[in-house]
C-alpha cells in the first residue's frame, strides 16, 4: 500500500503511544495528589493522531502544536524526561521551566512549538512554510490543530494563503469532538470540517484517527505533495478524548456510552492487534514494559530536579531604556 509505514515504523509508533499514555496517566495521578501546577490537557485516547502524523516528518520539518500537545511532542522526537521536567517547572525542562506544559518548544527537533492561543498554530505553521518556500528548502511545516481551532477566523486566512501560494504545509485536524466543553455540533454546522478544503482548492482526506497506520498513510500522501511543491493538504482525523478538557474540567458533558464506545477503539489496542502477528505478543508486551519503565524513571528523576534560579531576563534587556 502506498505510503504505509514499515513494521519497524509502526512498532515505534506503538512504543511512542504507550509513552504518551503513561505520561498522561502519571500526570493524572500527580494532579490528584496536588502535585501539578496549572491546567494539564491530557490526550488519552487520541495519541495515534499526533504520534502517527509526526512519524512522517523529518528533523528539518517544523511542527506547531496546541495546548494539548503531549503526543505531538513525543511524536516529533522529544524525550519524555525533559518534557516532564518542563511540566513540573524544573531547570532541566525542555525550556528550562520557562514555558510549561502548553508551550514546549525544541527548535532542534523542529517543534516550535506548543501554543495556547487557540488557532494561533495555523498561521504559525503557514509562516514557516512561507519561509521554506522563500529559501527554497525541501522541508515542510505541519500544523496539528483542534476542531475548536478550526472555527477561528485566522484559520481561513492562513489556509487561503497557504493554498494560494502552494506553501509546503500540512494541516492535521485532530477532531476529538469537543472544543472546551462544547460538542462540535454546537460549534459548526458541518460534521466533516474538511469539506472546507474545497473552498481553497486544497486536497483533504478524512481518516480514522484511532488507527495509527491510517493516519500515517494519509498524512504521508499530503507531506509528499507538499515536499514536491504541490501545495498544502488537510487531514481530518476523527478521534475522541477520554478524559476531560483539562485537569480543571468538572466533566459531565461526555456520555459514559460515548466514552465506553471510544475506549473499545483504543488506538494502542488497534496497533497492538495489527502488530501481534508480525512481531509477536511477547515482543509488544516487552516494549510496553520498557516504555512504562522509561516514563516512570523520567517522572522520578524530573520530580527531584532543581527549580531554575530567577534572573532578570536578558532577552528583554535590549527593549528597555536603562532607568
Amino acid at each position: 500500500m502506498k505510503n504505509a509505514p514499515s513494521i519497524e515504523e509502526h512498532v515505534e509508533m506503538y512504543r511512542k503511544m504507550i509513552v504518551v499514555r503513561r505520561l498522561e496517566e502519571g500526570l493524572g495521578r500527580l494532579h490528584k495528589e496536588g502535585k501539578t501546577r496549572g491546567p494539564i490537557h491530557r490526550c488519552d485516547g487520541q495519541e495515534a493522531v499526533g504520534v502517527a502524523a509526526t512519524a512522517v516528518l523529518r528533523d528539518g520539518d517544523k511542527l506547531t502544536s496546541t495546548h494539548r500537545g503531549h503526543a505531538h511532542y513525543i511524536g516529533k522526537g522529544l524525550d519524555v524526561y525533559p518534557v516532564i521536567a518542563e511540566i513540573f517547572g524544573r531547570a532541566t525542562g525542555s525550556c528550562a521551566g520557562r514555558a510549561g506544559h502548553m508551550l514546549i518548544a525544541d527548535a532542534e527537533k523542529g517543534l516550535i512549538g506548543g501554543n495556547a492561543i487557540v488557532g494561533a498554530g495555523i498561521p504559525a505553521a503557514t509562516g514557516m512554510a512561507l519561509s521554506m518556500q522563500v529559501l527554497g528548502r525541501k522541508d515542510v511545516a505541519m500544523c496539528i490543530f483542534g476542531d475548536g481551532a478550526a472555527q477561528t477566523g485566522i484559520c481561513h486566512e492562513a489556509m487561503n494563503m497557504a493554498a494560494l501560494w502552494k506553501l509546503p504545509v500540512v494541516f492535521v485536524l485532530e477532531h476529538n469532538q469537543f472544543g472546551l466543553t462544547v460538542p462540535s455540533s454546537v460549534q459548526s454546522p458541518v460534521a466533516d470540517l474538511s469539506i472546507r478544503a474545497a473552498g481553497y482548492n486544497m486536497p483533504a482526506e478524512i481518516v480514522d484517527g484511532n488507527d495509527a497506520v491510517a493516519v500515517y498513510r494519509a498524512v504521508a500522501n499530503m507531506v509528499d505533495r507538499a515536499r514536491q511543491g504541490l501545495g498544502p493538504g488537510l487531514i481530518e482525523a476523527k478521534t475522541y478524548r477520554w478524559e476531560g478538557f483539562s485537569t480543571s474540567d468538572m466533566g459531565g458533558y461526555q456520555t459514559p456510552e460515548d466514552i465506553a464506545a471510544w475506549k473499545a477503539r483504543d488506538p494502542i489496542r488497534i496497533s497492538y492487534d495489527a502488530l501481534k502477528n508480525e512481531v509477536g505478543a511477547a515482543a509488544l508486551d516487552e516494549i510496553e514494559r520498557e516504555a512504562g519503565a522509561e516514563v516512570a524513571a523520567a517522572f522520578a528523576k524530573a520530580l527531584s530536579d532543581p527549580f531554575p534560579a530567577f534572573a532578570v531576563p536578558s532577552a528583554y534587556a535590549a527593549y528597555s531604556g536603562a532607568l
Partner: protein
Amino acid sequence: MAMMRYAEALNAALREEMQADASVFLFGEDIGRYGGVFKVTKGLMEEFGELRVRDTPISEQAMTAMAVTAAMTGTRPVLEIMYADFVPLSLDALINQASIYEYIWNGQVRMPFVLRTQGGGGAGAGAQHSKSLDSMLAHVPGIKVVAPVTPADAKGMLKSAIRDSQPVVFLEHKLLYNTRGEVPEDADFTVPLGKAATRREGRDVSIFATSRMVLEALKAADALEKDGISAEVIDLRSLRPLDVESIATSIARTNHAVVVNEGWNFCGYAAELSATIMDRCFDDLDAPVARVTLPDMPVPYSEPLEMAVLPDAGKIRDAVLRVVK
C-alpha cells in the same frame, strides 16, 4: 548624499537590504504590482520577483502571525500593514507570540522581522485611518518600536531594523512620505536603534517629540525664539528602547520638559515619558512636565475638527509657555 523623499528613502533601504541578503522578503496588501498605497515598495516586485515581494489577501491577523514564524525559521520578513489602525488585528501575533518566545523558549529562537506601518492624522482619513497607537505597541516588552522622522533616519533605521535580530515595529507617518531631505547613498549607512537625536539645541526647555510631532516641535521652537525662549528639540525616534540618557542629559541643562505625542493622553506614550522623567529627573525639574497629545477621543473627519484635536506647533508653544512661565 542625495535629496530624497521619505518614501524613496524607505524604498532605497528595502532595495539595498534585499540585494544584500536573499532571506529578506516583503509581504503586504497591494505592495507588489501596485508598489504600495504610499509607493514605498515601488519597483521592488519587478526587481526581486514574486517570491520575495508578495501581494497578500486582506488577512492582517494571519500575515503577522506568519511573519513571526517565517522569521523564526530563517528569513527576515518585512511586513507592511497598510494603516496603524489595522495593527490591532496583529496584536495577538505581537503580544502573545512574538514578544514571548525568545524568553520562554530560553533563547532557542530569534524573530528578526519588521512590521512596517503608518499612522497619524492630518490627511482627512477619518477615525479608522488616522490613529497613532504608539503606546499600545511600545507597552509590550519584547518588541522594539521606532518612528523615524527624517528621510535619512527612515533609510538608516529601516536598514537597522531589518538587520536586527528581534521584532521591530517600524512606525511611519502618512504626512511624512513626501517630505524631503538629504540621504546618504552608501549601502553601509545605518542609524542605530535606541538612540534619540537632538534636532535643535536650546537652554530653557526640552521638547521631547515623536514622529511627525518633531517637525511641529521645531516650528514651535522657532516661534518660541521670538518669545525669548530657547527650546531644545529632541527626536525620540526610538520609542522602545527609549534613550533615557539623552532625556536626562537635556533636562539637566534646561530644567523644563514638554513631551509631545500624537496618540491619546490617558495611558499614552506621553504619560510614560512623563513618568520616566519623574523617576529619573525629579531633582532637575523646575516645573511639572507638560504633555501635548491627542485629546481622548476619535480623530474627527471634518478638517477644522481634525486640526482642532491634532497636536501642533501652536499647542506645543502654549505648553512651553505654561511650563517656563
